[in-house]
């Protein structure tokens, strides 16, 4: 069943609130963060208003209820990514936190001097800097897989770089700059042939295409709630039980321990081992509502919508004179996220001028500075779409882009 973005929009209070100069909000910065539906907003409010308590420790009613909701959220997430065990789901602060967790636990334990970590050229800083830091700590080496001219991962190059030295392939599911979707199934298969583990940065992919950790057989999956209709301050790390059990803990504190003595401690079982301190209880509970909302729309329908938008956007934007789009020009294995520059107008100017038409796009390096250099640009503008975006908004974007130029030209007099 096709999504009806008009109807979906009605579930998101921001669209009614943010009409400016008679123009509706065209929100195209979904790659950065998404808006929240009423069910998610209400979930937090209702929880705080009528059943708030801490988790895991309280005997009393409120705490028992909160614990029940919190752990039910974990099941919702486990189910969403098809994890074998609920305890393979760790709640973190966000995708960045999830990846750092892996670097500090699995990385520090299993990746040493001379070992290699394979990345793509188009990773987000969050999937680069933790490994650069690990490199500094341990002397491991980062190896980058080349991109094809069409800005896809060069699988031949990946094959040639995989070796017995490879301990981890840390790769994005979908690039937040190029829109490129990587072939995770194949990457896992190839990596596992070399006994290397695979971390999938799912921050962009998961919200738009869902994910099946068992089908892909990936070892780690990181993603963020706020990029998939959920609250800020919540992320997920899926990790295989066998790995979770074998690595040291991440943060120390309450809940992650079994016994503490003045001179030592033992760690709690999964998933608690990796959840030190009071978690973002309300955030996690509301995040489950976001997932349920997405499931209500139907992941298949979301994927179909994404495809339709991608095709239309590529068609309408590529045909605009003076635009340069960075990333694959064909809709296969590509998300509805488009980085571009228009004429020689600086991306900041583009974003400012579009903002005046109440169109929100991103401008800058998108936390991918090295890639910017590969692309030969200082910055790009980026329009990224989600379930509430209509094809018509692509036309609005197109027309408004033309205005940019006219505006700056006109001003010269």
């Amino acid at each position, binding site marked *: 069943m096709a999504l009806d973005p008009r109807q979906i929009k009605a579930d998101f209070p921001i669209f009614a609130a943010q009409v400016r100069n008679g123009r509706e909000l065209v929100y195209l910065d979904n790659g950065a963060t998404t808006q929240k539906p009423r069910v998610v907003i209400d979930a937090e409010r209702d929880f705080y208003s009528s059943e708030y308590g801490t988790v895991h420790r309280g005997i009393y009613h409120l705490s028992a209820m909160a614990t029940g909701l919190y752990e039910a959220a974990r099941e919702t997430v486990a189910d969403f990514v098809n994890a074998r065990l609920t305890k393979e789901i760790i709640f973190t602060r966000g995708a960045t936190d999830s990846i750092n967790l892996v670097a500090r636990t699995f990385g520090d334990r299993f990746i040493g001097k001379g070992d290699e970590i394979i990345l793509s050229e188009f990773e987000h800083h969050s999937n680069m800097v933790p490994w650069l830091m690990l490199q500094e700590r341990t002397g491991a080496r980062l190896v980058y897989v080349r991109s094809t001219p069409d800005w896809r991962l060069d699988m031949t190059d990946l094959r040639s770089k995989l070796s017995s030295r490879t301990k981890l392939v840390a790769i994005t599911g979908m690039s937040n700059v190029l829109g490129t979707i990587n072939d995770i199934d194949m990457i896992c298969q190839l990596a596992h042939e070399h006994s290397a583990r695979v971390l999938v940065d799912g921050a962009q992919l998961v919200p738009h295409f869902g994910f099946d950790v068992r089908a892909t057989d990936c070892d780690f999956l990181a993603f963020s709630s706020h990029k998939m209709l959920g609250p800020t301050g919540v992320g997920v790390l899926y990790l295989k039980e066998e790995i979770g059990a074998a690595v040291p803990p991440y943060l120390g504190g309450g809940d992650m321990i079994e016994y503490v003595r003045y001179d030592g401690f033992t760690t709690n079982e999964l998933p608690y081992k990796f959840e030190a301190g009071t978690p973002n209880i309300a955030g996690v509970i509301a995040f489950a509502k976001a997932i349920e909302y997405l499931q209500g729309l139907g992941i298949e329908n979301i994927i179909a919508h994404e495809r339709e938008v991608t095709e239309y956007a590529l068609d309408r934007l590529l045909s605009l004179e003076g635009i340069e789009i960075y990333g694959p020009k064909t809709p296969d294995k590509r998300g509805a996220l488009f980085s571009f520059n228009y004429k020689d107008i*600086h*991306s*900041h*100017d583009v974003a*400012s*001028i579009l903002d*005046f038409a109440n169109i929100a796009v991103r*401008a*800058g*390096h998108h936390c991918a*500075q090295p890639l*910017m250099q590969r692309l030969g*640009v*200082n*910055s790009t503008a980026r329009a990224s779409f989600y379930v509430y975006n209509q094809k018509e908004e692509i036309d609005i974007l197109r027309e408004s882009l033309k205005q940019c130029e006219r*505006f*700056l030209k006109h*001003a*010269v*007099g």
Partner: protein
Amino acid sequence: MQLDDLYREVIVDHYNRPRNFGRPEKWDIMVEGKNPVCGDEIVIYLTVKDDVVSECRFEGKGCTISIASASVMTESLIGKSLGEIRLVLSDFNRLLRGEVCQRCEQYSDAIAFQGVTKFPVRVKCALLAWKTLEGAIPDSGTHQA
């Protein structure tokens, strides 16, 4: 709030025809600045004679606001002593913080940047050249929390 507050005609003009643009043959002080977020880069060249700026040129890449602001800056510095430059710097900073600055009228087209205060995210663009210069004039004493 109007988009014209940001893109005043005079600003767009400075962007399209930046004054004192391009590297000079020689200079006394050279200083580079970058904004990592947007990739903007600027290089400023100063020639000082008898404690007075006789020439000020720049080159770089950037958005309308950062380029125009650099252009305006060069114009407002030429002929000033280093002591006066400090004053100009702090005046421009104040202008961009939204404070009243009557002297700013005297600095080339600096006053045109008043509208930028309504666009907080673009203030950094307007300040790039000025902050960069500040780094080369150690005692300039503008503080930031």
